[in-house]
């Protein structure tokens, strides 16, 4: 039967689905993870560009095939190159 099955073994689907589910679960559950991340991103980026802190949006998105961290960070101005 296996010969005619073009899907990968179902356990691969199980592992892949779990991986994506847990990315979301863990980020949501661990209180402050995204807040902490946001704080550190602001610190890192502010060295180079001036940003609009209040307008920053950080989201963890999971689709059927991948999980991604999406950050929307409005830039006010770019600092001069640091000598």
């Amino acid at each position: 039967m296996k010969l005619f099955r073009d899907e990968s073994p179902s356990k691969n689907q199980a592992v892949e689905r779990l991986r994506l589910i847990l990315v979301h679960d863990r980020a949501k559950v661990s209180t402050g993870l995204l807040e902490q991340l946001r704080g550190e991103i602001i610190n890192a980026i502010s060295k180079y560009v001036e940003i609009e802190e209040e307008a920053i949006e950080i989201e963890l998105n999971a689709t059927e095939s991948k999980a991604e961290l999406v950050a929307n960070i409005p830039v006010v101005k770019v600092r001069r190159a640091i000598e």
Partner: protein
Amino acid sequence: MAGRVIVVTSGKGGVGKTTTVANIGTGLALRHKKVVMIDADIGLRNLDVVMGLENRIIYDLVDVAEKTCRSINKALIKDKRLSNLYLLPAAQTRNKDAISPEQMVAIVDELKEEFDYVLVDCPAGIERGFDNAVAAATEAIVVTTPEVSAVRDADRIIGLLQEKEIYEPVLILNRLRPDMVRKGDMMDVDDINDILAIKLLGIVPDDEEIIISTNKGEPAVLNNQSKAGEAFRNIVRRMEGEEVPFMSVNGEPGIFGRFLKLLNGK
């Protein structure tokens, strides 16, 4: 020295917590440890049935918490087979709010002075029943099966245990089916280790003997013919600090493999 207090938990229901407690408790008692098992699943008590002790209950956990019975010892039920194994049953007609985490801690503190092991059978879910069961524990065994939903819940429970300052829970992978693993239709130990990333305590193969042993009220660990019983005996040895190899991921050889083994004289 005070005994070890270990909660057996899973998040998801029906993955084998109660069976695990019954088998580990019995297995430890077989090794001459003094063991008490607490059924913390108030309202849905089951450990008594799995142990075959359902006809001996007079007092329960809530009676002890409310001090309806004069001492804890009055509520402890001695096992039929092993004189150093005891059960503190859950109340059947109350709910999870009938006791508080503080009461649980007080009860366990008293028991651990007298016993080498206090095993707590945690109810499914993450609410009050979980809080009660975990309150007094310093160690945790997380039970899961190789299914997406059970592993997901196990991951959540591992996070919640951390919040309760139990940082190194160990894992029992229950109901593994080597035939399905071989076909690629079941996650294997490595997959689950990868995902949950906690120390593995044992792998218990799916075994019809477990159903038969539950029918009879005799834990499988007492049955030398049972594969699951053997797995639980190994788990107990590991809990006692022995190094015991895990059963191979591919499990027992099939008929052909067994034939080859015979030919090789093994």
